[in-house]
């Protein structure tokens, strides 16, 4: 069984890291689309900085905590609670990704039809990698987001 106990962040730090990870990437895409590419230079620096912040958050969340292992280990490495939590996270992740995909396709189509916004190939590529990251990381991010902290190993107030 995988020991998924050894490393964690506080609840606040975990939630902040998840928000920064996805938020920074989303803002970078929006800036890229709005600016039409990596120009002018200050915008380019801002976009690169946001992408680095997003990747840094991803690294902090999954390299320095147990959630990646928890979200991606085979059943044989997890106990029954961990399997149940992971399966619930995958179900939620599927619903979120499916809903977002349909929503973005629908709204994107409406916006493209109603306006003259042109999304460049490079911006599409950035969106593709963002979606790729979201699909890969969302289950583990949901585990990080939803886990409620336990007290220490002291004897908890008796539930009887």
């Amino acid at each position: 069984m995988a020991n998924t106990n050894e490393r964690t962040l506080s609840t606040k730090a975990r939630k902040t890291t998840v928000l920064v990870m996805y938020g920074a990437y989303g803002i970078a895409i929006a800036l890229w689309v709005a600016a039409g590419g990596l120009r002018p230079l200050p915008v380019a620096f801002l976009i690169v900085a946001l992408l680095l912040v997003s990747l840094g958050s991803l690294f902090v969340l999954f390299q320095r905590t147990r959630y990646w292992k928890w979200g991606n280990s085979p059943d044989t490495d997890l106990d029954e609670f961990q399997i149940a939590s992971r399966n619930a996270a995958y179900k939620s992740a599927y619903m979120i990704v499916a809903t977002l995909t349909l929503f973005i396709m629908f709204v994107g189509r409406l916006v493209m039809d109603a306006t003259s916004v042109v999304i460049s190939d490079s911006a599409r590529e950035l969106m593709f990698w963002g979606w790729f990251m979201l699909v890969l990381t969302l289950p583990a991010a949901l585990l990080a987001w939803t886990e409620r902290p336990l007290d220490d190993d002291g004897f908890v107030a008796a539930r009887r």
Partner: protein
Amino acid sequence: MLHNRISVLRAERGVSRRELADAVEVNQQTIGYLERGDYGPSMELGLRIAAFFKAPVDLIFSLEPFEGLVSELTKKGK
């Protein structure tokens, strides 16, 4: 909801979460979630916990909330 007395039994026997977790082959964190009532164990895990404490399953788990120790002792005293 499944109620349990795992934390009481642990305290009584002086067993840490880690020791119980190792004995029943789950993660320490899982014991914490069980104690808090956030997770209902499978029958297999329930039986393993009962075997570890050498106690009947219905002494550890119940569908109804357990009475408080004080009220139980008070009843016995009457």
